[in-house]
């Protein structure tokens, strides 16, 4: 057994794992993060995608010990503490980017990473950037629509923040 320390969804956690334990199993079975699910076992479907130090990884293909000292963000930490949904969550919700919901956690985390790398992707870039994540229900149309909408919403709010910062103090209403 190896002791690992990691920050999961902004909380410092420790776990005793075998050297061969996969990150997804440590998350689900030891840290109670069952929002991250296992789909295919072979790193094809992406249902288990989380952010490891900000980069999307398939957590069935990362050893828990590799995450020692790292920050892991799962779908369960995406919303604000007050429950306000992240724009990507809001977009999947509104654009019917899900049906059974099983691929959704991984889709969201991959989309977060994609949009952090490329905040205003074209539809083509969304399709390419998300192709490592599979959905058996939706046919993907709603997923692409949702990522495009989230990109729009995030750049709008970024623009709004930028402009409010640019406003002289006392003038902003």
């Amino acid at each position, binding site marked *: 057994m190896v002791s690992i320390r990691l920050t999961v969804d902004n909380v410092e956690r420790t776990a005793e794992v075998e050297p061969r334990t996969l990150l997804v199993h440590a998350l689900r079975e030891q840290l109670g993060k069952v929002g991250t699910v296992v789909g295919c076992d072979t790193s094809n479907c992406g249902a288990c995608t989380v952010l490891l130090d900000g980069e999307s990884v398939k957590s069935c293909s990362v050893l828990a010990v590799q995450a020692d000292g790292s920050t892991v963000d799962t779908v369960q930490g995406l919303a604000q503490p007050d429950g306000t949904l992240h724009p990507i969550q809001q977009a999947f919700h509104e654009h019917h980017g899900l049906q059974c919901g099983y691929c959704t956690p991984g889709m969201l985390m991959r989309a977060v990473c994609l949009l952090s790398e490329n905040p205003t992707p074209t539809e083509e870039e969304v399709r390419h950037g998300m192709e490592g994540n599979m959905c058996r229900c939706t*046919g993907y149309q709603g997923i692409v629509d949702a990522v495009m909408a989230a990109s729009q919403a995030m750049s709008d709010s970024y623009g709004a923040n930028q402009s409010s910062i640019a406003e002289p103090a006392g003038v902003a209403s």
Partner: protein
Amino acid sequence: MSHLSARPENPVVGEALPHESAVLHVTGRALYTDDLHPRTKDVLHAWPVQSPHAHARVTQLEVCAAYEIPGVVRVLTAGDVPGVNDSGTKNDEPLFPDEVCFVGQAVCWVLGETLEAARLGAAEVRVDYEPLRSIVTIADAIKADSYQGATRTVRRGNAMSALARAAHTFTGEITFAGQEHFYLETHASLATVGDDGRVFVQSSTQHPTETQEIVAHVLGVGAHEVTVQCLRMGGGFGGKEEQPHGFAAVAALGATLTGRPVRVRLNRTQDLTMTGKRHGFHAAWRVGFDHDGHLVALQTTLTSDGGWSLDLSEPVLARALCHVDNAYWIPDVEIVGRVARTHKTSQTAFRGFGGPQGMLVTEDIIGRCAPLLGIEPHELRRRNFYTDGQTTPYGQVVHQTERLVRAWDQVTSTAELERRRGALAGFNAAHEHVKRGLAITPVKFGISFNFTAMNQGGALVHVYRDGTVLINHGGTEMGQGLHTKMLQVAATALGVPLSRVRLAPTRTDKVPNTSATAASAGADLNGGAIKDACEQILARLRPVAAERMEVPVEDVRFEGGEVRAGERSMPWAELVHTAYLSRVQLFAAGYYRTEGIHWDPEIMHGTPFKYFAYGVAAAEVEVDGFTGAYRTRRVDIVHDVGDSLSPLVDIGQIEGGFVQGAGWLTLEDLRWDESDDPERRGRLTTQSASTYKLPSLSEMPEELNVALLERAHEEGVVYGSKAVGEPPLMLAFSVREALRQACAAFGPTGHSVVLDSPATPEAVFWALDEARRAYRPAVPEPTELGHPVQVTQV
């Protein structure tokens, strides 16, 4: 307009709402069955001992060594079964077999403190086998006369004499593949035992009632000793209709023997190697057309690959036989169906339930014969449409064919098919090594279970004293949006805002004797039952309101959370509270059964379907002549969902169904090892997502336009809607036929393209290569019309 189909003013049904669990899904809070075990104490984990042989007798089973592994708690074998050792309903699927019938079949199960202990324990179990002769392919099964279940025939008129009279006759064969469900959530069950010995099984099942019955018969107890709950499924697609029962039974048996919770969760390899898939089929056919290209006769024999046991193979076959006609009038017909027995997983329900396989036969025939008749495929299809009042080969009168024509015309005009056909011809003339194809295909799909008894639904509706509502119904949620629709139905029926209504998970102790959530019938059946329950409650509330507001009973209306009569009104919650104080029952059990259907399975005749769902799709593809690689450039769909209960949900079903159908027909290539090597024979060689190609974002059509058919109210169905789960899958024939036409463009006019299914890039390459070779025929082309022409299978 019927009472069942009429909508009140401002209904909640028809609103485009997100999935009812969408917030739980996007926050990771939605629980699936296997998410429950980390929050359950003292759980034991199960691992199967799987057969390495396609067919063998178990001569000895020695489990002692497993107990040497630390953490192994119990090995479950046939001797532990107090009831019936069978995981199905037909007594042909032993849960703990003494004869294994496919590679991967579980012989026994090991329970451990950890999954790892169970796995290591299973590796220590010694099983001696005496290998027996195995049949792997459908062709071998036909050769060996290896069949199971009944052979059925749909017959009208005299196909043989009509073929003899036909102006043009053609014969051919096709063998086409099945399909792996690949629901992203694998099979899972968690069983616990209560203080009185009653068993509670949480299972990822589309058919909780049957799971309950199988668990009960394995345990040798009454159904009332077993409760099955399904929170939600991470996809089902038919793969969890009959297949979950055995896994639930193993969990339940383990729990009763050890007194501890038992978890059975298949990993992906286990799921793929142990559970059934869509049936592959073989079809041999002989078809006749008149001088104008009208179908006059069809004789065909369909053989489905049932795998090792019957499972749902007979009803799947029945639906296949009832869909060979698709949208086409064929006067004289003989369609024979039989189920082959092979040493593979027990093939089972999969979205469409045989319908797609039946329809593939005729769409393939039309696609192959059109060039031989010298008629454009779209024209040949359109010319053969049913008209109202004609009957299907099994005797059901066809209605609403104008909807099919409207959908066809709408796709033709909005997708600008005429203009694009011209442009496409120009493109193909200008490009030697890249060709495009554009095809339009219809769908007519019968709605209701063929087995009439299953067309019933139940619901339980509670109105609490504060006016909030809790509904429960017999259907399960697998992503298809059934629960969303049911909430909308309840809110509409009671005239309350959606926020007042909640839905509780599907449980057999709330609503008993339910049908599988299958056959696209979930909303029709359970919606009818919920509406019935709500109306019983309103009927009791109406006199209370009338008395309170001093108005005639017949004036009382329920709308938007208010109770109104003329100018007067009172809040819903106040009425509910008043009714409680007046000792009025505020809950009701609702029931619905589909009227007007009947079916004789022996002679395959009757009116098995309440109605038909219609749809039309046009697809354009581009094929590379060097590799067979292709892309889908554009797809246009018009689909009939009646008056939609929930448009976002319905459009999602259409898009998802279409893509899943395109996966079956073009990408997903199930392979079993057919070699004689005893170490390998019968193994599923595509046992992970790395070797089994699923549709991904890369294969999305570049442009996908979906429209719901307008003016589509459906009489006699809940709020005028139609079922939507399965029919859109078959819209994907448009892609397969477009590929055929693109292949044809590599060859001379009149070349009939024989295309394998799935039409993988490799299959497409061989088809277009054959077309190219047709420019230099080795033998004179047999194209003189009027004489029988042999259409041969590659």
